[in-house]
């Protein structure tokens, strides 16, 4: 619905003219118009944070790269969503994600349902040029229904955001910085002992990989169900 103060901005994406209202991001406009920009941390219904950097687009004239999910277009902007430079960076980001932890697709609960796996295929990542770090992580299986495997976590923060924004529990958060960052439960206590977790499972179902899963799922069995999210997000904004 147009409010009296609403302004419409006009700009181009990949040479074609588009318009957007005040609250739309570059990614919103691109998706509305069938322009494909890859994302990992973005999820319709929770706030964008620009964390994964996969949706970076180029702004002509400035040479700057900005995250499409968290940037609003400006009047006269010339946005480029695909060129060799962007493709190179996107591939590099995905390869670095694979090298940073132990993503072994063949034995993963989310094999075949994983967004990291499918984005890798889409971007043509068929091997990783960087040295694998092979870090050592403990699994947390203390929760009666769910488990977390940090080997497969890409630190997208979806679980943190959905827990805070939609469930209102804020059980999850991130600790440390950079490569040492970890998703934690409360003050880094075992999940099963969390006094704040409601056991709703939203974090499990927004997780793009097999890092968060339901217990008892075997290889390739953990498909995520997210149909609840747009509805709950709408209710939370007070929509009908």
């Amino acid at each position, binding site marked *: 619905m147009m409010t009296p103060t609403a302004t419409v901005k006009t700009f181009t994406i990949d040479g074609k003219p588009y318009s957007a209202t005040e609250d739309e991001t570059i990614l919103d406009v691109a998706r509305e118009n069938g322009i494909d920009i890859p994302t990992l941390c973005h999820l319709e219904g929770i706030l964008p944070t620009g964390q994964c950097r996969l949706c970076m687009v180029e702004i002509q004239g400035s040479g700057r790269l900005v995250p499409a999910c968290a940037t609003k277009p400006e009047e006269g902007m010339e946005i480029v969503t695909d060129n060799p430079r962007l493709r190179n960076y996107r591939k590099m980001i995905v390869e670095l994600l*694979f090298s940073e932890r*132990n*993503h*072994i*697709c*063949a*034995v*993963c609960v989310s*094999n*075949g349902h994983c967004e990291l*796996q*499918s984005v*890798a*295929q*889409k971007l*043509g990542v*068929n*091997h*990783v*040029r960087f*040295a*694998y770090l*092979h*870090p*050592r*992580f403990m699994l947390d299986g203390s929760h009666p229904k769910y488990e977390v495997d940090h080997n497969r976590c890409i630190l997208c923060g979806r679980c943190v955001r959905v827990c805070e924004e939609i469930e209102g529990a804020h059980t999850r958060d991130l600790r440390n910085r950079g490569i040492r960052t970890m998703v934690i439960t409360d003050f880094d206590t075992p999940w099963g002992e969390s006094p704040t977790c409601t056991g709703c499972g939203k974090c499990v179902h927004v997780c793009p990989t097999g890092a968060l899963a339901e217990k008892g799922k075997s290889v390739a069995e953990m498909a995520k169900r997210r149909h609840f999210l747009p509805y709950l997000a709408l209710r939370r904004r007070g929509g009908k």
Partner: protein
Amino acid sequence: MKKIRLATIWLDGCSGCHMSFLDIDERLIELSDRVELVFSPLVDAKEFPEDVDITLVEGALGTEEDLHKIRKIRERTKLLVAFGDCAVTANIPSMRNPFGRDEMLKSLYVETDALNPQVPAQSLPELLPRALPLHHYVHVDVFLPGCPPSANTIYQVLTELIEGRIPDVNTLTRFGA
């Protein structure tokens, strides 16, 4: 028409990629008109031959022996294909890497064996500190991910390579496929 000299080898892997290769079924007969299988677990050659056109390498590099073999293969092969996830990413064999070689051997052969606790040392190639993908040590020409790559994928990639074309594998397969 001169036949393409094809070799296949199985290093630190489970042989699943070779099984999938056999799943090409009757198309193997068609392939045999175009290629000569000069070295493979499926034939009887003992020494990796010279002048190989295409080598499919299954498995990661996990031992000193694997390293020795892959270097010889690279020298003697025009087109080296990393065949399956173990060759491409080190996959399952890499699951030992976070623990370290010595800790793993101790856990497997000493701590859990009450009767004869010892790390096997004789007549076995030495384990590398970490199992790694082929391209960590040698140049790889084609990466064919999948665990295993499907028979159709293998057939399509092979027929393209035989024709002298490099196929776009990303439309055919992926990690863990």
